[in-house]
C-alpha cells in the first residue's frame, strides 16, 4: 500500500520545479549564460556529480509504502505492516534486515562484546561470538582476509569496467560541449565507482561499515541519513523563500511605514539567538504533538510531520538574512531611471514588482538558496544534538552523531559510526559549498568584474 508522506510530496515537487527551471533557463540565453559559467567551473562539475548521487539516494528514499503482510487465508483482508518502507529500503533490504546484537567493527566476523557461550560439551566460555550475518558464510575464519580481498577486487573490477563504459559517454559529451570540464566530473564519478563497487560486493557478506549499538548496519544508516539532510536543506527554502522575497522586496520598494514595519519585524526575530528561537518553537511543537498523538497513523507519519515542522521552523527563523539582502537591492533598484519611467507610464506597483524588480533580484535569491543549503545541513546535526532536531526515530546525521558521541569513550574505541557520519556529511556539505561558490561566482556580476580587474 503506497504511503504518501508530506515531505515526499514536497521533495518530488521541488525536484520537478528544479527540472522545470532548468528547461526554462535553457530556452533563455540571459538565464542560461550564468549557468553555463557555473558549469565551466571544474570544482562545480565534480561536486555536481556527488550532489547528483545524494539527490538520487534522497529521491529513492522518498517513495514510501507499507508492505503487505502474509495473508493467512484467501478470504481474509490484506493486512499491511505498520512499518513504512521506502524504495531505497527495498534496494538495501539485505542491509536493513541483517542486524546483529550490538556493535561490530567494519568487516568483522565477530562481535564487539564478549558473551557467555555454551560449548557443545556443556562447558561455558566467555568469547567474542561470531556475528549472525557478518562473514557468516565463512566456514573457517582463516579465509576472512582472502575472502574480503577477493570480494573487494571483484567489486573494483566491475566498477572499473562500468567506469570505462561511462568514459565513452563522457567522450561523446565532451565532443558535443567542449567548454565544459568533463574530466573532473568523470574523475569524481570514478571515485564514487571505486568506493561503491567494493562496498556493494562486500555488503552481501559483511557489514562494510560495522554495526551500531543495537546492531543496525552503519552503512544503511548513513545512506538513510541523506534524505533527512536533503529534506532539511531544501524543504526549508519553501518557507524561507516566499517570506524572504515578499517582505524583502516590499520593504525596499514601498519604503515608508511598510519598510519600518518589516524592518521592525525582522530585527525582532533576528535579535533572538537562533538556536534559542528554534528551541522555543520546537518545545512548543512537542507539546502540540503530544496533545494530538492519535492524529498520526504510523510512527513514520509522526516523524515526518516533525521533520516538516522542523523545516518550517528553520524557514521561519532564517528568512531575515535573505529579506535584508533583497531589501537593500530593491531599495537601490527602485531609485533607478527605468523604474521611474515605469512609474511615469502609470504601470501599477504590482506589475513593476513582478516585471522589473523581481527578475533583477533573482540572482540574489539563487545565490542565497545554494549558500543556505550547507548551513541547514550542518544546523540539523547541531539541533538534533541539542534535542530540538528531528524525531529521535528519524535516521539522520544528527541522531547518528548523537548516538555515537559516547562511543569514543569505550575501549576499544567505536569509531566507525562517527566516521561514517563524518565522511557522508563532509562530502555532502563540501560538495554543496563548492557548488554554491561556483553559483555565486557565476551569478554575481560584482565578483565577475572584480575577477577581470584583478
Amino acid at each position, binding site marked *: 500500500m503506497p504511503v504518501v508522506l508530506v515531505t515526499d510530496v514536497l521533495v518530488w515537487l521541488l525536484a520537478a520545479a528544479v527540472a522545470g527551471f532548468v528547461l526554462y533557463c535553457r530556452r533563455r540565453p540571459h538565464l542560461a549564460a550564468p549557468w553555463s559559467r557555473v558549469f565551466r567551473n571544474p570544482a562545480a562539475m565534480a561536486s555536481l556529480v556527488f550532489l547528483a548521487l545524494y539527490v538520487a539516494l534522497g529521491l529513492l528514499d522518498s517513495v514510501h509504502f507499507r508492505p503487505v503482510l502474509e495473508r493467512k487465508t484467501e478470504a481474509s483482508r490484506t493486512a499491511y505492516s505498520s512499518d513504512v518502507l521506502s524504495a531505497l529500503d527495498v534496494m538495501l533490504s539485505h542491509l536493513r534486515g541483517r542486524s546483529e546484537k550490538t556493535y561490530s567493527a567494519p568487516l568483522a566476523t565477530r562481535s564487539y562484546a564478549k558473551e557467555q557461550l555454551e560449548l557443545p560439551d556443556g562447558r561455558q566460555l566467555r568469547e567474542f561470538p561470531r556475528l549472525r550475518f557478518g562473514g557468516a558464510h565463512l566456514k573457517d575464519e582463516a579465509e576472512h582476509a582472502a575472502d574480503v580481498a577477493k570480494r573487494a577486487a571483484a567489486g573494483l573490477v566491475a566498477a572499473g569496467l562500468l567506469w570505462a563504459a561511462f568514459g565513452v559517454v563522457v567522450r561523446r559529451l565532451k565532443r558535443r560541449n567542449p567548454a565544459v570540464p568533463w574530466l573532473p566530473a568523470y574523475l569524481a564519478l570514478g571515485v564514487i565507482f571505486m568506493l561503491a563497487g567494493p562496498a556493494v560486493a562486500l555488503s552481501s557478506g559483511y557489514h562494510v561499515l560495522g554495526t551500531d549499538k543495537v546492531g543496525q548496519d552503519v552503512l544503511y544508516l548513513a545512506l538513510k541519513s541523506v534524505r533527512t539532510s536533503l529534506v532539511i536543506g531544501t524543504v526549508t527554502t519553501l518557507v524561507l523563500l516566499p517570506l524572504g522575497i515578499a517582505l524583502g522586496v516590499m520593504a525596499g520598494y514601498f519604503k515608508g511605514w511598510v519598510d519600518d514595519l518589516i524592518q*521592525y*519585524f525582522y*530585527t*525582532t*526575530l*533576528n*535579535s*533572538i*539567538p537562533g*538556536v*534559542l*528561537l528554534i*528551541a*522555543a*518553537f520546537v*518545545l*512548543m511543537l*512537542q*507539546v*502540540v504533538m*503530544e*496533545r494530538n498523538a492519535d492524529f498520526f497513523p504510523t510512527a513514520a507519519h509522526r516523524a515526518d510531520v516533525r521533520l516538516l515542522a522542523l523545516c518550517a521552523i528553520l524557514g521561519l527563523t532564517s528568512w531575515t538574512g535573505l529579506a535584508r539582502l533583497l531589501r537593500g537591492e530593491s531599495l537601490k533598484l527602485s531609485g533607478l531611471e527605468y523604474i521611474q519611467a515605469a512609474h511615469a507610464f502609470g504601470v501599477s506597483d504590482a506589475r513593476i514588482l513582478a516585471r522589473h524588480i523581481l527578475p533583477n533580484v533573482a540572482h540574489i535569491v539563487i545565490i542565497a538558496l545554494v549558500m543556505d543549503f*550547507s548551513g541547514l545541513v*550542518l544546523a540539523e*546535526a*547541531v539541533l538534533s*544534538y*541539542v*534535542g*530540538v532536531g528531528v524525531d529521535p526515530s528519524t535516521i539522520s*546525521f544528527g541522531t547518528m*552523531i548523537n548516538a555515537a*558521541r559516547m562511543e*569514543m*569513550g569505550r575501549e576499544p*574505541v567505536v569509531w566507525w559510526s*562517527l566516521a561514517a557520519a*563524518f565522511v557522508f*556529511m*563532509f562530502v555532502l*556539505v*563540501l560538495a554543496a*559549498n*563548492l557548488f554554491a*561558490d561556483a553559483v555565486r561566482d557565476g551569478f554575481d556580476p560584482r565578483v565577475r568584474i*572584480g575577477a577581470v*580587474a*584583478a
Partner: protein
Amino acid sequence: MLAYLVRRVLYAIPILIGVNLITFALFFVVNTPDDMARMQLGSKRVTPEAIEKWKAERGYDLPLLWNSGAAGAAKATQTIFFQKSAKLFVFEFGASEDQRDIGTEIRARMWPSLALALPVFLVGLAVCITFALLMAFFRASYLDLSGVVLCVAMMSISTLFYIIGGQYIASKLWHLVPISGYAGGLDAQRFLVLPVVIGVVSGIGASSRWYRTIFLEEIGKDYVRTARAKGLAEGTVLFRHVLKNALIPILTGVVVVIPLLFLGSLLSESFFGIPGLGSYTIDAIQAQDFAVVRSMVFIGSLLYIAGLILTDISYTVVDPRIQLQ
C-alpha cells in the same frame, strides 16, 4: 551623538517588547500552562488536581492577560503576562523547574561562559586575520588557492566533529588535558585550553575566507596602487595600509557579537562540562524548563540589541566621517 544613542536605546524598547510578545505567545498561548504541567509531570493520565498544584506552585494559576477577579490595579498585574513576561524587563526571572532563582543562576554562570567565549573570540580574531592576510599576501598563487580550499573544507565540518575529535585526540590519546570539568579561579585554564583551541579552529574556515575577500577588495583600491607606485615594499603596503583599512569592516562586523559572548557557547560548554550559560540553556531545553528558556531568549535579544548599538558606535570611532544623528 548622545541624542542618537538615547534614540537607539529607546528604539530597542519596542523590539524587546516584540520579543517578549513572541515568547509570551509561544509559551503561554500556543500552549496553555496545563499542557506544560502535563509535559512536566510526565504521564498522560495525570490528575487535574496535580496539574492545579503544579500551576499554583509556579504561579501559573492566573489568567493570561486580564484578571477580572482581582481588585484595582491587580486586575492587570495578577496575570501571567505581567508576572511572567513583563517582569523580565526588570530582570526578575522567577524560579526554574527545580525551584532555584534563575537570576542568581545566570549571574553565577555568566563568568565561566565569558572565560571561554572571550579567549575564543580574541584568539580567533587574531588567528583568522593573520591567516587571511597571509592568503592575501600570496594571492593568486597555489598557496592562496590551497588556503582557500582548506577554508572551504574546514567550513564543511560540523562543529560537533571538531569537539568530539579534539576531545578524543587531546584528552584520550595524548592525555594533555582533562576531558571535561571546570574549576574556579586560575585553575580554570587547565579546563579551558582545549575548548578554546577547538573553538578557534572550528571558526577559522568561514572567518578567514570572509576576511580574505575584505583584504582583496581593499588591495584593489587606488591608494594601494599609489603606495606601490611610491616604491613601498609589498609587506609594508599590506601591514601599514591595507591591514589598517581592512580592519574597519572586520571590526565593525564582529562588534555585534561581543555582548553575546556572555551567553557562551552552547555546544562547547555542554561537551566540556563548563557550568556556563550555554550548558544551562541546553540543560533547560532538554529538561523542557520553559522558565529558563524564556529568560535566556530575553537576555539573548537584549545582548544582541546592545551589540547593534555598539556596532553603530564603533563606526563613528573608526571612521570620523560617519556622524550619527
